[in-house]
């Protein structure tokens, strides 16, 4: 298999030095990217295609070029999935189908015309035969006979007519066969288009699966990185305590001589250790941020791949529009629910109905058998909560089910909240604080965010990164925030602080910190008091 001029930027051979540099947050060494000459014909890198192209008539070449205009522009893209999906539009073009229909119609017309010609010949033969019979009868009546010359002329005429008929029959057969061949070719092509659609979709699904594995791997590294930072932070605390004690002794006891000298030496060593620990923590943070950005990048890639796959196999029209797709009559099974397989999640409901999650679609069957299909934002947190509670998320992860990242993240957050609630959560763990757990106020959230980062990064770094949040005069400090609102409110405030209109436009470092903070908050690792 040759992969010359592959229109993707991902190099086939890994560059270890580049990866290492990225891991450490350094500028990666420059690579010589393969140049893609977008000005060449789209099939220039495909000799067999070029060979066929060269045999085409000008009008066919013109049609091909017209269809390929979009893809030619697409060659500038670095996304092979998008490129393949654009190409699919070329192969699946109505103009090709129209061309085939036109050709088949012209052949059918030709067959019809030739069959009429054949019919004409047959009639001519019949007429000639019956003419002769009439002439013979007339001449017999007159007591005469057809002369041998006339007989010969007639036989020759009949022979010629029979020959013409035979030739016409042969022509009709040839044309009919040609028509069948054209029809077969058109059918074969239509089947190839369908097959290629599945082939590309399958490869895009495979790319998503590879990304998912990479996301899982990078997420584990993020977790290890975090755990290591916690260990170092613990050492930093021990170090601070030792410094305080040494300094306290010097200030209070006023030691002199050798004692003072020993204490000063230890103090210097402790300060050096503190500097080393802080430096190490900073390095780990940089690496952690890089890894978090890597996870987000891969998630973004999967979101794009999902969009591309949806172009090949669009979701049901109404679902795509964001409306309730179909409300079936009781007992009427939707097309979607007919396709339930092992990777799907089926949850029974207390009222006797059920819910089935198939990819991004949720089919809810009521106790009366009535079916409603929901997708995306239409699916409520309560419904997702039921799925998560039934162990659905674990099953989805185990089966590596393809679904939107947004929905998956919602389920993950719900799972975290459920765990946090069932464990009592840090801010509900202490007795009498259960009701408070669901009553995080805006004031508390801001205080928690600020103290968490000052403690973790130090005031200098927090100021440097512009991380401190303030409450605005217009905001009610006692505003109670439901668990699901925390993320939104925090993201809004951070976006405002960063002077951007969307949280997603903030740099990866801040987004990563918000993610870590919310995760730790949900996991009950943060002190709220």
């Amino acid at each position, binding site marked *: 298999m040759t992969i010359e001029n592959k229109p993707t930027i*991902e190099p086939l051979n890994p560059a270890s030095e580049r990866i290492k540099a990225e*891991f450490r947050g350094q500028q990666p060494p420059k690579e010589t990217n393969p140049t893609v000459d977008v000005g060449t014909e789209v099939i220039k890198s495909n000799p067999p295609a070029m060979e066929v192209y060269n045999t085409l008539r000008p009008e066919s070449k013109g049609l091909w070029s017209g269809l390929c205009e979009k893809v030619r522009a697409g060659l500038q893209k670095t996304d092979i999935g998008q490129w393949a999906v654009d190409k699919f539009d070329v192969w699946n073009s109505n103009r090709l189908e129209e*061309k085939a229909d036109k050709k088949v119609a012209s052949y059918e017309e030709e067959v019809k015309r030739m069959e009429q010609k054949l019919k004409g010949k047959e009639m001519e033969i019949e007429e000639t035969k019956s003419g002769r019979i009439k002439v013979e009868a007339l001449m017999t009546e007159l007591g005469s006979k057809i002369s041998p010359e006339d007989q010969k002329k007639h036989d020759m005429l009949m022979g010629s007519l029979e020959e013409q008929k035979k030739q016409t029959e042969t022509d009709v057969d040839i044309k009919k066969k040609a028509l069948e061949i054209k029809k077969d070719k058109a059918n074969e092509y239509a089947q*190839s288009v369908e097959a290629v659609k599945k082939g590309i979709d399958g490869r895009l699904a495979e790319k998503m699966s590879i990304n998912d594995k990479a996301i899982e791997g990078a997420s584990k590294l993020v977790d290890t990185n975090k755990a290591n930072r916690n260990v170092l932070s613990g050492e930093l605390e021990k170090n601070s305590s*030792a410094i305080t004690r040494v300094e306290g002794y010097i200030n209070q006891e006023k030691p002199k001589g050798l004692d003072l000298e020993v204490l000063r030496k230890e103090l210097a060593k*402790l300060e050096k250790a503190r500097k080393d620990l802080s430096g190490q923590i900073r390095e780990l943070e940089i690496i952690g941020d890089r890894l978090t950005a890597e996870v987000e990048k891969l998630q973004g890639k999967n979101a794009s791949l999902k969009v591309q796959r949806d172009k090949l196999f669009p979701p049901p029209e109404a679902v795509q529009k964001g409306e309730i797709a179909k409300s079936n009559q009781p007992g009427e099974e939707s097309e979607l629910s007919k396709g339930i397989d092992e990777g799907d999640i089926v949850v029974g409901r207390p009222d006797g109905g059920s819910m089935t999650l198939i990819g991004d679609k949720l089919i809810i069957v009521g106790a009366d058998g009535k079916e409603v299909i929901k997708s995306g934002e239409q699916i409520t947190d309560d419904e997702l909560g039921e799925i998560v509670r039934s162990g659905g998320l674990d099953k989805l992860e185990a089966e590596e089910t393809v679904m939107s990242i947004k929905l998956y993240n919602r389920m993950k957050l719900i799972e975290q909240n459920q765990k946090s609630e069932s464990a009592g959560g840090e801010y509900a763990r202490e007795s009498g604080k259960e009701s408070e757990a669901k009553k995080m106020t805006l004031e508390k959230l801001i205080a928690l965010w600020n103290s968490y980062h000052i403690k973790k990064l130090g005031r200098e770094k927090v100021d440097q990164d512009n991380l401190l949040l303030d409450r605005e005069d217009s905001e009610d400090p006692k505003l109670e925030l439901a668990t699901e609102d925390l993320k939104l409110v925090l993201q809004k405030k951070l976006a405002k602080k960063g002077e951007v209109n969307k949280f997603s436009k903030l740099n990866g470092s801040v987004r990563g910190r918000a993610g870590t903070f919310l995760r730790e908050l949900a996991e009950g690792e943060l002190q709220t008091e």
Partner: protein
Amino acid sequence: MPQDQNLQNILNQAQKAIADADAAIVSSNKLIQDQEKELVKSREKYEKEQAKVDAEIKQIVDDMDVKTLQFLKDME
């Protein structure tokens, strides 16, 4: 050697904090190196797997281009 027990305790605590910090940093550096190696390895595998799928997509596209052009030829 200081005679004051309190001073001795303070010094012991300081020395332990220094030794633990050193050990934690050594361990952390080892972890970074291990992670770095793991990342390189997994990224290499990732890129290889993605490149394999990309090559398959490219092959599918090339084959289908030939089929489409042949189809155009057949329909002339």
